[in-house]
């Protein structure tokens, strides 16, 4: 809790320290990825389901909002809401076949479904402009106020992230969060304890998809251009790394992971050509020395501090 409050304070004050669009742009990306990774963590970290099709849901969210706002002239808020809903439905639809399939087979199933979705988005040229990409997406605007400057946009995204993270924090402390983790730690035992595992898995898929949808809608209006090639498998792997490095199954893990994996490669630019090498090795070192992720480290530090008292 205290860590969360500290991070929030830091996040609110951050624009006072960063002035240029470069740093704001990175901050925007980090915030969107926090939302995406937090939702992904619901599946991967909380429920223990390894999906490789999550980026396709992110894409559905981005395209839904872009199409509704640009092609049909609907307000941004409507586009975002529709993105959340439609993606949620897609998540539930993916979950239904996924119930029968377990482990690595689930990973491949979601990977294949995700690719089918991505290719379908590319194929529907009249709707999505296909491989050419979707241009001319406006900045978000709510009730007549347009988030034009980087700082305004930053606070809009931050508000969404705060709501999202609070959502997950609350969820974690409810019967749903406990049920998700119970499924992860022992599906049969959870079932025998009275947890409707099928319903919970569908819920986990659906909720994580809603997060992806909102993140996608925000992404579209932040970058103002989206194309199918962006929503590729390598992004899935980055997302996976964010949750694992941050600490799966914790509320703040994906937050820390998303920020780290977005900021670190930029921050490492001072080593010039070697920055990606150092970045990769840093990820590796994290897993070597912090198998529970960064939040795992934080938790054990907190525990150590508290124990004597």
């Amino acid at each position: 809790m205290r860590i969360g409050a500290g991070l929030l304070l830091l996040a609110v004050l951050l624009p006072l320290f960063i002035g240029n669009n470069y740093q704001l742009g990175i901050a925007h990306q980090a915030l969107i990825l926090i939302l995406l990774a937090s939702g992904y963590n619901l599946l991967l970290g909380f429920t223990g389901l390894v999906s490789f099709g999550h980026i396709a849901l992110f894409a559905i969210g981005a395209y839904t909002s872009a199409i509704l706002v640009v092609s049909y002239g609907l307000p941004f808020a409507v586009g975002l809401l529709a993105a959340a809903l439609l993606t949620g439905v897609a998540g539930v639809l993916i979950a239904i076949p996924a119930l029968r399939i377990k482990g690595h087979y689930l990973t491949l199933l979601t990977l294949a479904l995700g690719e089918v979705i991505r290719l379908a988005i590319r194929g529907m040229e009249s709707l999505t402009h296909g491989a050419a990409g979707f241009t001319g997406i406006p900045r978000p605007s709510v009730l007549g106020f347009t988030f034009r400057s980087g700082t305004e946009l930053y606070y809009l995204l931050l508000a969404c992230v705060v709501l999202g993270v609070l959502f997950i924090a609350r969820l974690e402390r409810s019967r749903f969060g406990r049920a998700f983790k119970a499924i992860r730690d022992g599906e049969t035992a959870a079932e025998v304890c009275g947890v409707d595992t099928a319903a919970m898995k569908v819920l986990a898929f659906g909720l994580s998809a809603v997060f992806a949808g909102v993140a996608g809608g925000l992404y579209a209006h932040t970058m103002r251009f989206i194309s199918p090639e962006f929503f590729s498998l390598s992004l899935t792997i980055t997302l996976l790394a964010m949750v694992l490095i941050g600490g799966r199954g914790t509320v703040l893990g994906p937050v820390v992971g998303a920020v780290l994996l977005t900021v670190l490669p930029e921050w490492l630019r001072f080593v010039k050509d070697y920055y990606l090498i150092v970045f990769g090795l840093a990820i590796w070192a994290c897993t070597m020395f912090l198998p529970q992720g960064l939040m795992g480290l934080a938790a054990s530090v907190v525990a150590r501090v508290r124990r004597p008292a």
Partner: protein
Amino acid sequence: MLQTLLQVALTGATMGCIYALVALGFTLTIAAAGVVNFAYSEWVTYGAYIGVTLVAVLGLPLWLGLLLTVMLCAVLGYGFQLVVFAPLEGKHFLTTVSATIGVALAMQAAATLIWGPYALTLPTFFGSGSLTIGGVALFPHSLLIVGMTVVLIAAMQLALTRTDIGLRLQAAAQDPVAARLMGIPIRRMRTLAYCLSAALAGLAGFMVAPLFVVTTTMGFGLMLKGFAATIVGGWGSLKGAVLGGLAVGLIEAFGAAYLSSEYKDSIAFAMIVVVLLLRPSGLFPERIAEKF
């Protein structure tokens, strides 16, 4: 018509063999140590680059280049065991996954620095001509890949079932505890599996270099197909990996030739979805990884 069919089957089989080789190496570490190695793509890439360095830069003959590439890749696998896998033994499999993602990123970036940004290539063993039999064009290098894959799979099957070390490798994979009670050092067996896996990656990289252009990203697509083949075939089953690889290659080729090239990837992925829905444990859900 028949010619087209045969031609498509041949090209599908060639790609299928490549996927099978990749899937075989990818599966080896899964079967032997339960390790899903996302750096496998870079093993393949490095195999190709090492081949280019040896043949195109140092001017070694192709066969010698191939031999050395395979050996150097085996050494790479050994290095991985020492540095990456051994310290993570017994950890959650996702921890190993993220470690290999990190190492893969670093290796890919390093490849650009070592070998430069330009695409490279290797000559084939038999030049670039093709021979035509009954209207079907046969490309010697493709035939070599198919032949080599067949021989290799046969050799591997033999080595695993007819040699002491092969049997011990199988035993260690099937039941590590019982293997220890038979006096089999399982750590060493795992190391062997990593070396073999990397050697296969090197071989695959070298053999596809003339067909694929050698770039820093060449391994990723291949690993993905290998990953799909591994699971379509049946997790951890070598037989499944080989047949899964062939299946993926043939589906792609036939989809592109007879349905639509525009949607061939969609078709291939949709097929995977269908296969998994019908057979939730892959095509060959062997009761227990039969024959390793």
